[in-house]
């Protein structure tokens, strides 16, 4: 004979609700709403609509754009190049980083070239990339990949170099093969560092992608913004800005949550510190 246990006892329940409320940060979101209200009033009172749309108009334009499918369409175009470019950078950065990081000779041989290429801002390559690859999707993908490569490469490299040598030796004496050591020792040890690199690259890639679209102006959310600015459609322009901000926010949070799940062993300190 057994009695059904409630899934959560009362105390846990209360604590959970409490934590949810705390995490929701009411004060912070109230502040955002309040700021928008003040902005709305100021814009309407002083008739600043020529330089700043009232937040309500922006929201309206955002809703319209979402419903009509214009904004999602542009966003998908942007995201396509973004995803492919970032994926290329992750694969390239991790492979190169592991290779260079695990060999002293390779590191010595490549560091001058890396130090030479790394500081060149990816956006400065836009004029060159146009000449090479035209103004289409391949150019944007490669530019994004190039810009996003460096943080991942460097972080992977440091992560691999920071691997505890004792772990390697233990694995080697236990008869783990080279490939096995790579997969079971080096990669897990470098994973937190790789994750950091990917997080940095993810925002950088978005910046590079939107910039390329904005400067060249053929398609994507960046070129949509440029067109709205030229047409002086301020609510539509601000709607696109808010949307890109939301996209960046979702990417940030998504990566942070994934990072905490995947590299869960890095511990509390790193998880709370951001």
């Amino acid at each position, binding site marked *: 004979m057994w009695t059904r246990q409630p899934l959560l006892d009362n105390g846990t329940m209360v604590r959970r609700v409490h934590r949810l409320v705390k995490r929701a940060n009411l004060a912070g979101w109230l*502040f955002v709403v309040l700021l928008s209200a003040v902005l709305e009033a100021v814009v309407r009172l002083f008739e600043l609509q020529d330089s700043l749309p009232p937040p309500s108009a922006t929201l309206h334009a955002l809703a319209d754009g979402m419903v009509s499918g214009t904004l999602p369409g542009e966003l998908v175009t942007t995201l396509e190049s973004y995803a492919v470019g970032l994926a290329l950078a992750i694969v390239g950065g991790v492979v190169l980083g592991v290779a260079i990081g695990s060999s002293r000779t390779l590191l010595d041989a490549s560091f*001058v*070239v890396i130090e030479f290429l790394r*500081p060149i801002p990816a956006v*400065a390559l836009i*004029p*060159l990339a146009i000449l090479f690859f035209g103004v289409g999707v391949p150019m944007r993908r490669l530019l994004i990949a190039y810009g996003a490569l460096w943080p991942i490469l460097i972080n992977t490299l440091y992560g691999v170099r920071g691997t505890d040598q004792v772990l390697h030796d233990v694995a080697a004496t236990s008869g783990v093969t080279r490939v096995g050591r790579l997969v079971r020792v080096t990669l897990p040890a470098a994973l937190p560092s790789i994750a950091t690199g990917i997080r940095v690259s993810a925002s950088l890639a978005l*910046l590079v992608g*939107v910039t390329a679209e904005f400067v060249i102006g053929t398609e994507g959310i960046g070129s949509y913004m440029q067109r709205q600015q030229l047409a002086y459609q301020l609510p539509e322009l601000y709607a696109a*800005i808010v949307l890109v901000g939301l996209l960046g926010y979702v990417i940030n949070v998504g990566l942070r949550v994934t990072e905490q799940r995947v590299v869960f062993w890095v511990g509390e300190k790193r998880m709370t510190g951001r």
Partner: protein
Amino acid sequence: MIAALLNRVVPRLLGVLVFAAALGIWEVWARSEESFLVPPMSAVAERAWQVWPTADFLMPVAASLKRLAAGFAIGAGIGVVVGLMMGSSRRTRRTLEPLMEFSRAIPPVAIVPAAIVVLGLGDAMRIAVIAFAVCFPVLVNTIEGVRVVSPEARDTASILHVGSMGRTFRIYLPAALPSIVAGLRIAVSIGLLMVVISEFLGEGDGLGRYILFHQSQFNMPEMYGGILFLGLLGYVLNSLFLFAEHRVLTWHYGAAGVQAP
């Protein structure tokens, strides 16, 4: 002794050698291809040697640096001040956090069209977007830096009735300094990125414009030279801040009576 010296020099030499080999391959390949898009390395170097010391090149560089300095000063100033406020008061931090998290998720280029509408196509717009981009890394790092101040230091200060101004300048700011300088280093490369982006648009001068102009004129050596100079500039600025970071860290650990790890 000689062996030790060799051990230190040979790896460095290998890196330089590989770099030289890469330049050599570029040279040979460009010469044999006679590609219009890729001038031989020697042509780029030669043109750089001729053009870089002249006003034609130094004026745009000076203009870009001026914009970077102005935007950086404003952005970093705002970042440090707001960061100190948010770092030292939990309530302020909680209130401003959603706004900050959202604003810093916006790729800085996205506010360029909005800045153009308000400020036009001139330098005010450029400085504003540079400041916007610079602000967030500094802000985030300042908050982090202040938050690591030990509760003991906070409590001691409040027992001794150190005012909030005194606390800010004598405890929080010095404690956060290493983190702030690290933030400044990240910010300066983002600032350089924004200098180039903002100069792609509108009229005026600057390195970004210089690169775009020579691209439109198909002056390949000049364009490559401009891009390489930007890389060089980024490298020098980064090294300067790394040096500052190191100095601040040494001083920081020295003041705390601990050896730097």
